[in-house]
């Protein structure tokens, strides 16, 4: 097997160290707003989860000194920041913050991150797959959408986080015939 070829650069270690003493409480209302907005704007995402909406997911950015617990219940989704992931989770997903954000924005392919060993998954694989597919089905950058609503600075911050310009639609579509097959 070849050596895994990483595609995401982790945050500088010094930044992670500098964030260690910071309190987590300012993050909690932002996370509540984030999942609340998704529920309002994209209810179909939670419906796609089916039975897995009752599961508890741990998300651990390996380059940050904290983690998140997500409970994507359609009626009342919850996301909280925590220093340590609890043991009673159904699944844990860990990787650099850039990889986790890339999944949320739809700009990274989960399988590719897994092949390259940048994403580590433990626990209920079916639930993780359902969550990945549900997030991907939304078709918009969830974090970018939230940041843009939050503040005028949101759009530039999102652009900075994402780093990739959107691709232009294929121009050849306009030349395609519309002759029906049936």
């Amino acid at each position, binding site marked *: 097997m070849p050596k895994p*070829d990483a595609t995401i650069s982790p945050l500088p270690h010094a930044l992670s160290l500098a964030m260690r003493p910071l309190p987590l409480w300012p993050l909690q209302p932002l996370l509540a707003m984030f999942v609340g907005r998704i529920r309002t704007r994209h209810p179909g995402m939670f419906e796609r989860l089916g039975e897995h909406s009752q599961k508890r997911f741990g998300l651990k950015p390996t380059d940050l000194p904290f983690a998140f617990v997500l409970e994507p219940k359609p009626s009342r989704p919850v996301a909280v920041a925590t220093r340590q992931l609890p043991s009673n989770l159904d699944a844990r997903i860990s990787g650099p913050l850039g990889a986790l954000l890339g999944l949320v924005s739809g700009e*990274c*392919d989960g399988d590719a991150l897994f*092949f390259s060993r940048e994403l*580590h998954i433990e626990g209920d694989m*079916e639930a993780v797959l359902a969550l990945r597919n549900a997030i991907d089905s939304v078709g918009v950058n969830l974090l970018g959408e939230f940041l843009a609503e939050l503040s005028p600075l949101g759009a530039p911050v999102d652009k900075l986080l994402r780093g990739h310009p959107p691709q232009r639609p*294929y121009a050849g579509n306009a*030349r395609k015939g519309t002759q029906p097959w*049936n």
Partner: protein
Amino acid sequence: MELICPAGTPSALEVAVNAGADAIYCGFSDETNARNFPGLNFSREELGEGISYAHRHGVKVLVAINTFARAGATDVWKRAIDDAVGAGADALIMADVGMLAYTARHHSSQRIHLSVQAAAANPDAIRFYVESFGVRRVVLPRVLSVPEIAKIIKEVSCETEVFVYGGLCVMEEGRCSLSSYATGKSPNMQGVCSPPSHVSYREEGDKVVSRLGKFTINAFAEDEATAYPTLCKGRFTTSHGTGYIFEDPVSLDAATMLPGLRDAGVTALKIEGRQRGRAYIESVVRTFRQAIEALEAGEAIKTGSLIAMSEGQMTTAGAYRKTWR
């Protein structure tokens, strides 16, 4: 040559359309298609909306109803066929002879493509489907070399479609029972190969160990790319040593074979991966659209840009270029 692209969700369909697909293939959120994974696929309403979006952009939509109908539950498959036809599907991709007969009888003007799951790999088999059910196109199994494909095309009256990128089933498409043996579920009947409900990846010492049901499939060292937990691409220890007995964990990438496939008379090129995310769809579809344009312009085809998307971060030309190992 047409470019046929996968979509596991409505948003993936839009991405594929915008990246340059000529046609999209997708399925309903149930066991009637061979990618029946959690959180994936289309509701009836989503399919209708997806077809409208695609048609507005001059792109066709093919609906895969390509598992084998379960005894006592054929209504599930017949309903899927009726609903796909009603939604305006440009073609149905099918494998089960009973469901093919149902479609030919009840929706005689509906275009039918023969799924790779039917494993029709010789002119006689293909002719049977064409003459019996009016099949207009056959998706050839990934077991044929380019010269073999060329010979088949000379002997059949229908169009042909071949896979050019993505997950690679080895040798036994539509007839494989490995997943069923290990988990009780298979792509042929339930639409899932190595269902995630039976998969685990665990860190054990300095290795990540993948398991499918009771079977250990692989143990990846820290400096190795990982792969899917499929039995056909597992690393096993036998009296001959430890290694990949059936196939390495790789993805098919036939970009270098496009000139040969065109010369053989292939109608359409297919990308595998309805279970993959939007980023994969965008990247792979755009890359192959550019490859087709380069081919048509007589320019060199760029290769190697899809390694990161490939299983095990490796690619192969598969059976298209048969060599001894």
